[in-house]
């Protein structure tokens, strides 16, 4: 049994303009100690997916018309708020995008970590404090005995994200949700934080769901990838397969739109034209059709589901693998990319 199994999750929001289908039928599994990367543009539903796992979306306007979130076999969508409180922070922890605003400015970093520990474990203040110092040391905060009593504004951005990670790991969660944990940080700090997460995962054996728009981050970290577009999963598979041989035009365009240092000057970038679809009025047929470089007439009519294109590698596209490869070659040739 997988640690976490999400089946056909739908997370919708009621708004005056209609129902926003932020997540519309997403399924995936995460095993113990595994890392899943969820990739997509902003508005693709990836953050809402994470918030759904924790049941942190505001209800109302949010509601879950369908689906299951099975955590160790239990459906979290049926769990009570009290049961969820036991799970949050203890079995399943989360770190957020902006470390500058995610820590409460009026409490010391230590207090905030100790609080997380003491919500879930019957320990004395002293023990909680020792634990806080220990995790702060684990995440690479120098002189944690002193730093534990400092306020968030005395920490730099990178340190605050480390403190967030420390807080999240303080109860040894089975699964860690990381929602764009490096987006708000400087590039050099980004690498340090990612390295730290890999190290901690090895040490604690935590499963990680890494949510990001940055394919580079997942390629480094994830065992498998799910690409989201317009509230749906459009491609899933092992990291290498998806990254080196994407079978959905959207994932391929995403990869082609990243600048590559090793081929600077030789390869032209492929910008994705247009903007993500409105999640209220989804286009008929494939969501990506209006922006797709491989588009065929049928794409505007047929809504493709995820189908297994190669063993363990699924993509939502009506084109056959051969057609996709052909299109990739054609456009690469136009852009002047050498074929591998």
């Amino acid at each position: 049994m997988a640690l976490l199994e999400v089946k056909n999750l739908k997370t919708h929001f009621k708004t005056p303009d209609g129902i926003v289908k932020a997540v519309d039928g997403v399924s995936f599994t995460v095993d113990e100690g595994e890392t899943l990367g969820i990739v997509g543009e902003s508005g693709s539903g990836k953050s809402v997916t994470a918030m759904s796992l924790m049941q942190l979306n505001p209800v109302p306007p949010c509601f879950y018309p369908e689906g299951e979130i099975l955590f160790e076999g239990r459906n979290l969508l049926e769990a009570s708020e009290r049961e969820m409180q036991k799970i949050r922070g203890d079995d399943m922890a989360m770190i957020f995008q902006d470390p500058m605003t995610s820590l409460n400015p009026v409490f010391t970093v230590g207090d905030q970590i100790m609080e997380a520990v003491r919500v879930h474990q019957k320990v004395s203040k002293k023990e909680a404090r020792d634990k806080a110092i220990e995790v702060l040391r684990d995440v690479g905060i120098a002189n944690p005995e002193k730093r534990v009593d400092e306020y968030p504004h005395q920490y730099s951005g990178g340190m605050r994200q480390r403190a967030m990670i420390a807080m999240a790991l303080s109860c040894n969660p089975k699964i860690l949700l990381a929602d764009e944990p490096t987006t708000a940080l400087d590039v050099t700090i980004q690498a340090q934080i990612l390295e730290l997460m890999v190290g901690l995962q090895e040490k604690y054996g935590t499963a990680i769901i890494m949510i990001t728009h940055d394919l580079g981050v997942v390629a480094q970290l994830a065992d498998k990838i799910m690409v989201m577009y317009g509230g749906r999963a459009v491609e899933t598979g092992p990291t290498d397969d998806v990254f080196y041989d994407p079978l959905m035009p959207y994932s391929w365009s995403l990869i082609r739109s990243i600048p590559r240092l090793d081929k600077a000057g030789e390869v032209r970038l492929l910008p994705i034209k247009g903007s993500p679809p409105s999640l209220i009025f989804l286009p008929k047929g494939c969501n990506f059709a209006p922006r797709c470089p491989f588009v065929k007439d049928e794409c505007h009519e047929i809504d493709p589901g995820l189908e297994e294109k190669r063993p363990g590698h699924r993509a939502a596209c009506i084109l056959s693998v051969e057609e996709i490869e052909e299109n990739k070659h054609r456009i690469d040739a136009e852009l002047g990319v050498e074929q591998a």
Partner: protein
Amino acid sequence: MVDRPGDSRGEAGTAVAEAPEAFEAQVKGRTQREIIWRRFKKHKLAMVSGFVLVILYVSALAAPVISPYGFAEQNFTAINSPPSAEHWMGTDRLGRDAFTRVLHGGQVSLLVGLGVGVGSTIVGTAIAISAGYYGRYVDTGAMGLTDFVLALPALPLLIVAGSVFRFSPPIITLVLILLFWPPICRLVRGQVLSLRESEFVQAAQAVGVPNWKIMVRHLLPNVIGVMVVQATLAAGTAILLESILSFLGLGIQPPTPSWGNMLENARTAMTNQWWLAFFPALMIVITVLCINFLGDGLRDAMDPKSVE
């Protein structure tokens, strides 16, 4: 709120966010004005209040025409009579028709409110725009003046001033304008400062549009929302202050009726001739309440943060 309308320091959260607005406009292709109007229409109380205010203003302005008697006209056969068909709101101890006096008193209160609302907004905005736009010494001077006026104990000073100058409606309007412009000035200046840095103003400067034209054409439309909301606040507070001063015998002097001095007159008769106090009191509360609801509706409609 006895002292002064909407001091900007007293308001939590005036942060400006634009993203949801832009998104919303994009979704259905609406203009800013349509969004504001649609939101305002949803605020039922504000719509009703606006309507009531229009009626109040029209009837107060038309008081000489529609009132059944003269405001000083005495009817000695009907002294202290309760509301009846001839005297809708009864008569006072001099046999004067209370309805007529409420209408005329309304003229004073409503015009003072309107005058102070509009006047203080114009003064505050003018000072703010010049201060925010020219910066440097103009700004320092203007802000010093703002702080100065804000630090004054308004009501106690008005009490003494009232005993010196014998306030007439125009004078009290003028005095209140002089006291009420600073909060508006502060808010508008804040907006102007951020606008001054914006690309469209810099673009206008770059192509050589003269300063006054930039101010009128680009800055004014952008601060009009803040101005309107502040104007309603100032108007409401002005009506309250006028009534307080008149009640204390230091505002509008009899025989000119104002709701405040009518209440002062009615005070001793409150238990026996309830109608003499009831109607002016009701009018003050309704008027100020409507003005406040109107302001609230406008603020909600124009606040990018507000969620429907």
